[in-house]
């Protein structure tokens, strides 16, 4: 049986449920599934031709931000696809940062000197922080371009350099495609390489591989035993999981998290308010979040003390 079939066949009937502890983070699939790259590890198979989800407009995002104020949302995330392909992106950030901190997940390629300068202007007048997470897979063209496409390393680094020139400290996000025991070595090499490009105090975030989407073909899918059981949740602080305090808004409804938007069962409703309820951790990707915590957040919230 192939790994992709296992993802469907292995759905346990007695999936544990994650509680909903209030809406702390609101994600927007602002770039849809449309991307200017065709990465071999993309967990939602984004590409220039994938229009399963479309861009969200500034007015659409703005409406949801106004609503989110009632719920006391603490932070806003923007992902895709590639968010900067959305022509409304700068206007969206301008409005969001009037209300709270924002994070954009980008491949960096469209961050020209002009865009970086405009981002600096936007954030300079605001109380709240703008975090820009640039995905770079490995510290060399060799490792990155094999996953993200030819020339993508050079172009991403140019984006990073443009941001650094404008006073940003972008978070370089990289999927762990090496053995965990090599983390320290890889991080050290990453820092050395980025310093060589002028980023002298880089911030780095390692994300574990999510074995869905194209990653199934690139490396592997989940194995038969990699799913959650009710017993595994005993004594586990479920506030570590993104889905306990977050929802993802797309142009096609509200989903439990940004990882599962291609899974119909992960669509929780049309309106935010109807999604404030427990959710079954039925998908094998939930297993990765269980082990690693809120992998998509800038910082994991940590265990309650």
């Amino acid at each position: 049986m192939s790994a992709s079939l296992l993802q469907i066949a292995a759905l346990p009937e007695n999936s544990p449920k994650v509680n909903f502890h209030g809406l702390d983070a609101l994600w927007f699939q602002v770039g849809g599934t449309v991307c200017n790259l065709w990465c071999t590890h993309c967990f939602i198979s984004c590409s220039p031709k994938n229009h399963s989800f479309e861009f969200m407009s500034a007015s659409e995002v703005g409406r949801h931000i106004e609503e989110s104020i009632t719920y006391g949302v603490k932070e806003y995330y923007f992902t895709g696809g590639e968010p900067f392909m959305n022509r409304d992106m700068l206007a969206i950030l301008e409005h969001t940062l009037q209300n709270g901190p924002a994070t954009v997940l980008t491949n960096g390629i469209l961050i020209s000197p002009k865009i970086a300068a405009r981002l600096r202007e936007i954030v300079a007048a605001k109380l709240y922080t703008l975090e820009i997470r640039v995905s770079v897979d490995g510290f060399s063209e060799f490792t990155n371009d094999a996953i993200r496409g030819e020339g993508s390393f050079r172009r991403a680094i140019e984006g990073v350099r443009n941001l650094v020139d404008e006073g940003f400290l972008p978070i370089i996000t990289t999927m762990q495609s090496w053995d965990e025991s090599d983390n320290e070595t890889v991080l050290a090499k990453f820092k050395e390489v980025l310093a060589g490009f002028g980023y002298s105090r880089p911030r780095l975030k390692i994300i574990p591989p999510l074995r869905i989407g194209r990653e199934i073909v690139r490396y592997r899918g989940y194995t038969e035993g990699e799913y959650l059981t009710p017993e595994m949740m005993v004594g586990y602080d479920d506030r570590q999981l993104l889905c306990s305090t977050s929802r993802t808004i797309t142009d096609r409804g509200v989903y439990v998290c940004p990882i599962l938007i291609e899974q119909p069962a992960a669509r929780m409703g049309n309106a935010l308010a109807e999604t404030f309820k427990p959710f079954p951790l039925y998908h094998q990707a939930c297993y990765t979040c269980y082990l690693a915590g809120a992998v998509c957040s800038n910082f994991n919230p940590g265990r309650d003390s």
Partner: protein
Amino acid sequence: MDFGEPDFKRIAVFGGVYNNYLALQALANALPRHRVDAVFCLGDLGAFGPHPDRVFPLLEKHNIQVVQGNYDNSIGNDLNDCQCGYTDPRDNYFAQISYDYTKTNTHREFKNYQRNLPPEIRFNAHGKKVLLCHGSPRRTNEFLWESTTPTHFLEKICKDYQTDLILTTHTGIKWQRRLSDGKLFANVGVIGRPENDDKTNVWFSIVHFVPELRVEFVALEYDFQQLAKEMKEEKLPDEFIQTVLTGWWTTCLEILPGKERVRGKF
């Protein structure tokens, strides 16, 4: 813990002693000038500095009421780590050195004291409902930075926790924000280490309840050279000592939001 309705006109509040008993002594020396009615510490008595047991007698002598921080919960319960909430390997490496040192050098009596500290203190003063806690009212180790904490979030927790004034610490950098209906939020800062601003002083807060509610941040000088000397004698990491001597943070940086991080040197 509810203190009822004391007739406080002014109180002193500080966070994060981090074993810096020299700063705590300097604070005690400064208190008479401020004519405060009570003194509160928002937790994290240990970490970073030398000689944990030198903090306890000062707290007792000056009748300082203490809220339990994540560090106090860990030390008091003999846990294996500080529950600071760091996620970066380097941050955790240095946090663990600090934690192991503090745990080893804290007397059992002081550990028992820390274990029994209250997670929050409440009282009413001059018509204002006050809530003192470590990270946030909802989680001891929640980081509330100025650049990542929306006003509408603060309004909501004031409502949820039925309070007019929330005082926290945990991040190590002070800030405050006026809210609607005369409500106020303040992160009171810490006296244990400088604020990542090229200055060697630390900070505490004076809360004024009359004639109107306001929080005043007060710079506190102390003998940082002596602290650095004792840290060296105790073989604490040079990275920590450099922070004391220069005012720049050298560790536990990855948890900082971009806006706060970019103001620092590292």
